[in-house]
């Protein structure tokens, strides 16, 4: 497991400018990683088994993949979470999660508002109905909830939590599942933003970790 998953997914080299910038927020950096560990690698997974956590994570990451990527070609974060899942689950389950995510792709956020004066801003969009099959009832219902949270969270109502309890999820697992999906919505966006930033060099600044500036340094020493 990489020491810092965000650095790993964003491909931030040690000693680079972005590494220095992230280290100027040491608690944010450290506790983003601790959040990953608490939600994906907990010592006591409780009711939400590791295999199900990885399944949810792979599904959520695939829903965040850019729409212009070829279907079936996961982005770096999706590949990472699919690999965690593949290490813990049978191939048929991995395929079931991947198929559910491809079927669930949409552009968010959409949804209705509870607030009367905002209803004119409602945007319609799909509601996931995931085939139980190899996934089973509990995981399929959890993925349907993940789809709601990723793409149309303002459509959430008490009924969505009742669907989870009816499938056998208790209150502790509902909180862990919600945190897992919500944390990934943070992590995947931060990774995306850091990758865009790294790929958009500032003409005014040279990065100490780039080969070009290392060569320039050598030249200056010679």
């Amino acid at each position, binding site marked *: 497991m990489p020491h810092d998953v965000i650095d790993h997914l964003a491909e931030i080299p040690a000693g680079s400018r972005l590494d220095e910038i992230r280290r100027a927020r040491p608690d944010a950096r450290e506790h983003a990683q601790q*959040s990953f560990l608490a939600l994906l690698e907990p010592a006591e997974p409780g009711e939400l088994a590791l295999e199900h956590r990885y399944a949810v994570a792979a599904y959520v990451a695939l829903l965040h993949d850019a729409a212009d990527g070829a279907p079936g070609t996961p982005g770096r974060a999706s590949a990472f979470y699919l690999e965690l899942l593949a290490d813990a689950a049978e191939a048929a389950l991995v395929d079931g999660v991947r198929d559910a995510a491809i079927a669930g792709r949409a552009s968010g956020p959409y949804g209705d508002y509870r607030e009367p004066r905002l209803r004119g801003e409602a945007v319609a969009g799909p509601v996931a109905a995931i085939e139980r099959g190899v996934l089973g009832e509990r995981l399929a219902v959890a993925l349907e909830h993940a789809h709601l949270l990723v793409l149309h969270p303002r459509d959430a109502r008490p009924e969505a939590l009742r669907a989870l309890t009816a499938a056998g999820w208790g209150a502790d697992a509902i909180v862990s599942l919600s945190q897992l999906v919500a944390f990934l919505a943070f992590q*995947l966006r931060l990774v995306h933003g850091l990758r865009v930033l790294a790929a958009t060099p500032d003409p005014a600044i040279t990065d100490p970790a780039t080969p070009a500036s290392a060569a320039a340094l050598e030249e200056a020493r010679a």
Partner: protein
Amino acid sequence: MTQIADYPTLRRPEAFTQDGLGWVPWAPPVPEDALTDAQREGLVEPGRATSPYFRLLARDPEALRARTLTDLDIFHNENGGIPRWERELSAAAASRVNGCVFCASVHARAATRLSGRGDDVQRLLDEGTGARVDERWDAITDASAALTATPSAFDARHVERLRAAGIDDAGIVDQLSGAAFFNWANRLMLSLGEPEVV
């Protein structure tokens, strides 16, 4: 089976607001007198034991603790980067796009308190992230809105515009972090309960 609560007579907000709101949970929080030591530690600040939101999240204390310490550093660490009010603006913009009236109220109010620009903040709430204020403000709200889309629409043009507005890369990471963090918080606040006029 876990009981999920409805609030048929709740006084709900009508729209986005900078007024202070309450929040009621649909899933049951841990009762205050039943919090374990690990759950109290997960709250980070002892005063949060009175909040039903934090007592609900205390059901996964390690996730809550890590969430809270991430939050505090992104929004309060003043070592470089953009001013705190611009991080709050990023959070409010993300909340406006996702439709989280509770989160938007807290962070719009914070942006107003820290900047003194309550009228501009109110335009963000009333008109949405398309409201035009000034170049630096618009660069921040547009970048935060783009990052909030699924899949994310944040791209090199947003970076170039933030830089042109005088924001260095540490500041851009603050903007990204503030908006990304509220994609976490909005989803919890929207899906585990709802706001109440108090």
